[in-house]
């Protein structure tokens, strides 16, 4: 991995302000209450999804508000994609509900989008999928994500990073209320990751949409993330990422350098998965309702 030697200070500030995460580790997303100032966009209420006999996710609740960045992390097979697909209404939950604000416009950046070479597709045309957008809007969106040069190229000829930017441009052209990003930095090199994160955060500042992001990295998240939700079948823990650059994980990863765009998330797991669902000492299922 190539480390960029830069001393750029943190550009970001924790948008969640003074609020401190409540942690009880009981599997509920109590942090909903803290961001109640923003308008809720999408909400999962006690979702349980079973495939055959196998329970993919159990009793998961999650809310994304306007102007909020929620990062979903968890190990492979934890049910991140299942949860995402349920939120996108691609699968029906076994129990529980998905609520969406009426008329919610979602911009979706899928994890993988392979366009078969048999389909001719230029970036210019791709940006008008599904609905037609005026050419100047398309050009503006492309320059916004720093990919103006790709306008007349075929999508199959783009590099991974370029295509991610084009996917982002297409998603923001829809003027979404909620941007859903499924592992947006996967397969992009380290330098590219921080750049993409900076870009995503800038776009959010410009347009004010909420962001729900899935990340494969259990410890490093986008710095502007308001809330990290760690799931492994159920919500294991959630909270704000740590911005401090003197945490041991951060030092180990970046050798004392401050990396813009990234932050560390400390897991607060007080239960194990070996003998089922155990609760922290202060957990009380009944007292903390969903909002």
């Amino acid at each position: 991995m190539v480390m960029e030697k830069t001393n750029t200070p943190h550009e970001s500030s924790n948008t969640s302000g003074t609020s401190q995460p409540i942690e009880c580790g009981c599997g509920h997303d109590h942090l909903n209450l803290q961001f109640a100032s923003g308008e809720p966009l999408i909400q999962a209420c006690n979702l349980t999804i079973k495939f055959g006999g196998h329970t993919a996710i159990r009793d998961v609740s999650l809310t994304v508000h306007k102007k909020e960045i929620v990062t979903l992390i968890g190990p492979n097979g934890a049910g991140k994609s299942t949860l995402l697909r349920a939120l996108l209404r691609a699968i029906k939950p076994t129990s529980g509900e998905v609520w969406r604000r009426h008329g919610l416009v979602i911009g979706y950046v899928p994890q993988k989008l392979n366009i078969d070479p048999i389909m001719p597709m230029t970036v210019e045309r791709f940006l008008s999928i599904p609905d037609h957008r005026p050419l100047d809007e398309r050009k503006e969106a492309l320059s916004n994500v720093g990919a103006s040069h790709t306008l007349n190229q075929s999508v199959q000829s783009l590099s991974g990073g370029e295509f991610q930017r084009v996917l982002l441009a297409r998603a923001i052209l829809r003027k979404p209320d909620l941007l859903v990003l499924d592992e947006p930095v996967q397969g992009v090199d380290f330098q590219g990751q921080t750049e993409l994160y900076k870009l995503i955060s800038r776009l959010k500042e410009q347009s004010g949409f909420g962001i729900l992001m899935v990340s494969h990295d259990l410890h490093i998240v986008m710095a502007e993330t308001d809330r990290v939700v760690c799931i492994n079948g159920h919500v294991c823990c959630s909270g704000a990422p740590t911005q401090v650059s003197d945490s041991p994980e951060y030092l180990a990863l970046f050798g004392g350098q401050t990396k813009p765009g990234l932050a560390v998330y400390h897991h607060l797991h007080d239960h194990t998965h070996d003998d089922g669902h155990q609760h922290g000492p202060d957990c009380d299922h009944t007292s903390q309702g969903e909002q």
Partner: protein
Amino acid sequence: MVFEDFFLRAIAAGVGVAIIAGPLGCFVVWRRMAYFGDTLAHSALLGVALGLLLGFNLTVGIIATAIMIALLVTLFQHQKRLASDTLLGIMAHSSLAISLVVLGLLQGFRVDLLSYLFGDVLAVTLEDIYWIYGGGIIAMILLSWIWKDLLALTLHEELARAEGINVTLVQTLFMVTVAIVIAIAMKVVGVLLITSLLIIPAAAARRFSTTPEQMAVIASIIGAVSVIGGLMGSLHWDTPSGPSIVVAQVTLFIGGLLFGSLLNKMVKRSV
């Protein structure tokens, strides 16, 4: 050169089918549904058999059967035990076999099986042409209505769903369109060669296009040119008309490949 009426009717019928087969064939190619198209085409013969057996209009019978088989395939595809190509193979050949058995049992009728299998475009009547253009226009309206949504879900189904496209509706309408086009194309090339009418012009058009819409238009043009060329050839050399059209398509396809690579070389040399 003066052409007989039957020949002009054949050209009109063939070009009509080629125009709608172009854009529809592009989707068959993009969505990797060549075998699906083949299955529907085979089932069209079942429509003929049922139409003769029950005494209703054959074109209506073909469209109805093709739609039914399409829905059946979609239904069965949700089960995971049989691979999709196995399922399609079973459907295609069982419907072909059943229809041949039924046609054999229909004593009183002298059914010209070859004309159903390979088409008999030189025998199309004015009524057939009405069917072809009527069905073709309906198919074209349906296809242009679902075009952008179908394109989105061809690229990424989940993305289309996430962004609010009614995937089931669009897929169903697409299958209805395929069924209609198969029913009208059957008169031109017959059940065994229908798929070629869909996929060869589309495949040939790929090289000359940069957007999906371009590919659709170019596929229609290539299809129409091969219909005219194939029919002229069939007249000149006294060869069967349906297969001659397909041969013309393949000739254009290969010609396009050679011309395309020649063009590439010239561009590279000049750079």
